[in-house]
């Protein structure tokens, strides 16, 4: 055993149970069989998503604490977000999760055209989400609600200066000390949605790569691991948004 000059594969070994019929090109040499490889990859992705939960968790913790401390500021700052855009974005992402799940199914049943269509739809919906986010961010920039960049307290010390929002919610004017705390809300808003958007951008980039590979038939010949695991990632990014939406947009939307 100590001086073997024979480079052995698991499959070339007669002791290996039932190994020789399946040695597809995508089976990495350190795995015994395809099942083990797929199992390991899926497990790794779930574990990675767990690290992502911890990553976003720090910001959720900060949000929890500051919302508890500065509730009036969070309420009025939240009113500055457009709930129509937010709801639309939520619908867009949920739909994209549906199209992604359909894509995974298509890969599993080897429907190449279906897979490509689903990936393209997911791609477009992802871009739509980012587009809507851009519109929202632009609005915030125009109203000077970006922390650190000429942040303005006017909308909160004098809500009537913002007629459309005032008409809906009739917010009371905040004292300057409480109004200052809206900057913390927006810090968390930009940090959380920004980090989320970064994950979306990475996902969309990978989707682009996957569309290219799917058209070449890479995922519809039995090796669906990549699509499946990317699906997990995409659903995770969706779930983060499902938490962000009510926490950021829906704090207290009834009219006063």
């Amino acid at each position, binding site marked *: *055993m*100590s*001086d*073997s*000059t*024979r*480079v*052995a594969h*698991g499959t070339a*070994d007669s*002791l*290996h149970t039932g190994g020789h019929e399946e040695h597809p090109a995508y089976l*990495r*040499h*350190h*795995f*015994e069989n395809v099942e*083990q490889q797929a*199992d*390991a990859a899926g*497990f*790794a992705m779930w*574990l*990675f998503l*767990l*690290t*992502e939960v*911890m*990553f*976003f*968790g*720090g*910001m959720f*913790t*900060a949000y929890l*604490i*500051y919302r508890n*401390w*500065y509730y009036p*500021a969070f309420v009025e700052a939240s009113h500055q977000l457009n709930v129509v855009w937010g709801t639309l974005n939520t619908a867009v992402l949920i739909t994209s999760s549906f199209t992604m799940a359909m894509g995974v199914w298509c890969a599993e049943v080897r429907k190449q055209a279906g897979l490509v269509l689903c990936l393209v739809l997911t791609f477009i919906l992802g871009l739509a989400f980012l587009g809507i986010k851009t519109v929202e961010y632009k609005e915030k920039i125009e109203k000077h609600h970006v*922390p*650190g*960049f000429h942040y303005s307290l006017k909308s909160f010390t004098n809500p009537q200066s913002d007629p459309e929002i005032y008409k809906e919610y009739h917010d009371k004017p905040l004292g300057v*000390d409480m109004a*200052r*705390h809206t*900057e*913390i809300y927006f*810090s*968390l808003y*930009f*940090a959380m949605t920004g*980090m989320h958007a970064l994950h979306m951008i990475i996902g969309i980039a990978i989707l682009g790569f996957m569309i290219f590979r799917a058209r070449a038939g890479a995922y519809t010949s039995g090796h669906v691991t990549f699509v499946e695991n990317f699906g997990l990632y995409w659903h995770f990014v969706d779930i983060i948004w499902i938490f962000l939406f009510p926490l950021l947009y829906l704090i207290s939307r009834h009219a006063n």
Partner: protein
Amino acid sequence: MSSTIVVLPDQSTARIPKVNFITKENGILSWLLTGDHKRIAILYLISITFFFFIGGSLAGLIRLELLTPQSDLMATDTYNKVFTMHGIIMIFFFLVPSVPATLGNFLIPLMLGAKDLALPKINLLSWYLYMAAGILAIYTMATGGVDTGWTFTTPLSTHYVNTNVLTTGLAVFIAGFSSIFTGLNFIVTIHKMRCPGMTWFRMPLFVWAHYAASILMVLGTPVLAITIVLVALERTIGIGIFDPTKGGDPILFQHLFWFYSHPAVYIMILPGMGVISETISTFSRKRVFGYTAVAFSSVAIAVFGFFVWAHHMFIMGVSNYAVLVFSLLTMLVAVPSAIKIFNWTFTLYKGSITFETPMLYTFGFMGLFTIGGLTGVFLGASGTDIHLTETYFIVAHFHFVMVGGMLMAFLAGIHFWWPKMTGRMYPEKISQLAAVVTFIGFNFTFFPQFILGTLGMPRRYAAYPPEFQVLNVFSTAGASILGVGYLLPILYLTWSLKYGEIAGDNPWQATGLEWQIQSPPLTENFPITPIMDHEAYDYDWLEKKREKEVTLVG
């Protein structure tokens, strides 16, 4: 009966196996683009040693400055940068990756009977992230350094220093991901790639220790990452999340920072404890006493380790009741470590003990970690923490556990598995000398610091009242001895690559799967998939196997 268990092949005829993971492919690209866990481990070993020496030089500068009470060797600002960079490099670029990324990477697939880790490309990515982070850290040093302390407390780090906080933060962020990917890889491998017959309770304790450390890496490090992001945002655009004038809270930073940084210390020590389990078993020729207890205590340390972070914040104005909870949990997390020490001690009982270099380092670990761990209890009991915290007592405590503990365990492991990794033995006499020199130097360096701490000398002081000088001089004298102790292995281990004796498969007659194959191993580790049909540390199985082996031809 000889007093060594080393059995080497006949040196006149023995050769390093012609085909092994080192000779399989040639050329720098075959190393830089490798997926082989063993090659990646070697890459890590070289880079970690490099960073250790940078961190060590910075330590030397610290001790030189502290020879005199005045801040006279370097400007105070420079001293502040020196101890900051010493901490950052030693923690993030040496201690955290040391055993996992070198020994863990090399050995876990071998110990499990697997051909590689589950995700070889991620493994290589992990090394590149580490190198990128390390180069960025060096760049930071070269362009002015950072002087926030390795704990980069806000608001000092966000609003009151104009040094390279952002680049350092970025370096630590990237190094964090290197760590996460290593841990992720280990967990998947341990769950999914054990060879047939390798149940959880037949795994070596080294693997259990790495499993526990990997849980911490995977769950804790992301919180550090997001903390760094928030500090960067606060520093650049002033988002105010830790700024009291904007309604933020600097104590929130403390919670987020220590939520990772406490588990980090267990990330650092658990793999070292795994090494000790292996060496103490081999050099007593006995199964580790209380295998199940040691395995579970590793996991217990990992779990409890997540719930004690605020013991770093006892005097910061957190509520008295929070202090009660965290102090109690800290006492609980101390118990599994005590269990391990006793289990290792009783592994010696009725064993057959020899004192090769890894065993010397092991004994050093047990004594010094006991002291370091017990002084941790001094700090965990909230009342005494008030007097001892933020003094040299803390410095002594963590150096005892990290240097007296972890670094000794790392050296034990390097020496123990050196023959497996390189095919050659290190020179025994000089390595024993180095171990003793290190032990003596260590005690001279760090024991006086306990006394400096109880006397009240604060940490991170460039200048100090003259009455503390005598103890500081002792400490610096010890440090020079310690430096010699660390330099020697570099020299003789490098020497052994060319001139060391040929080790053969199993110079230590050890029981692990890694010792049943050639040294150095083949790229694919095992020619045929092994089947684990015996318990871990089964010396009877080893004895039977040796009887059956043919050792002489003709």
